[in-house]
């Protein structure tokens, strides 16, 4: 069981390295945003697997925190790419 979990952690880390290659090479900024979002997902997997390895449930709140932060970051980046600013000024008032 422990060997399997360490092998799983190594595989997830190799996945993150492959996504890092896409971030370095990506032709457009949107490619880099997609790859960063997937790196956030892989980081969530890594936190879950590490909390099984060290056998403590104190790290499990971090999973929810990382998911929320990754979502907010993705929305902010794509709004910046789409409109050029993140918080739009309200002209109707």
């Amino acid at each position: 069981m422990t060997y399997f979990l360490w092998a799983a952690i190594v595989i997830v880390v190799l996945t993150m390295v492959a996504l890092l290659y896409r971030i370095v090479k990506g032709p457009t900024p949107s490619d880099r945003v997609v790859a960063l979002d997937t790196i956030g997902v892989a980081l969530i997997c890594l936190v879950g697997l590490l909390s099984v390895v060290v056998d403590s449930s104190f790290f499990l709140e971090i999973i929810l925190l990382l998911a929320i932060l990754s979502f907010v970051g993705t929305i902010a980046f794509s709004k910046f790419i789409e409109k050029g600013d993140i918080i739009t000024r309200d002209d109707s008032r």
Partner: protein
Amino acid sequence: MTILANILVVFFIAAGLVFIVVSAIGLLRLPDLYTRAHAASKSSTLGVMCILLGVFLHFWLIRDHFNPTILLGILFLFITSPVGGHIMSRSSYIAGVKPWSGTVRDDLKPEIERMKKEQKIK
């Protein structure tokens, strides 16, 4: 009983690993942004949900500790990850990222041109 629980946990974690690795291969090998976003948003969502389900079953069945935080995380990822993929693809289309040269049909282009024309008239 512990052996059965271990088999269940290992099965879910292995399935999640397969999906995560497939999404990384898709991000490396697919030709343009829209296919890459397709691979990233769907496959990695299912992978992380499987892995978190394995972690949840490990803490529930073996350690006898029911942890609703992981279930909340699974639900949150299931809701927000496709929304994130959709918004990334939409913003990159509006910013002018070209689809792959083998694309045969683009239904969104006349619609966006019509929207721009209407906004200019207003």
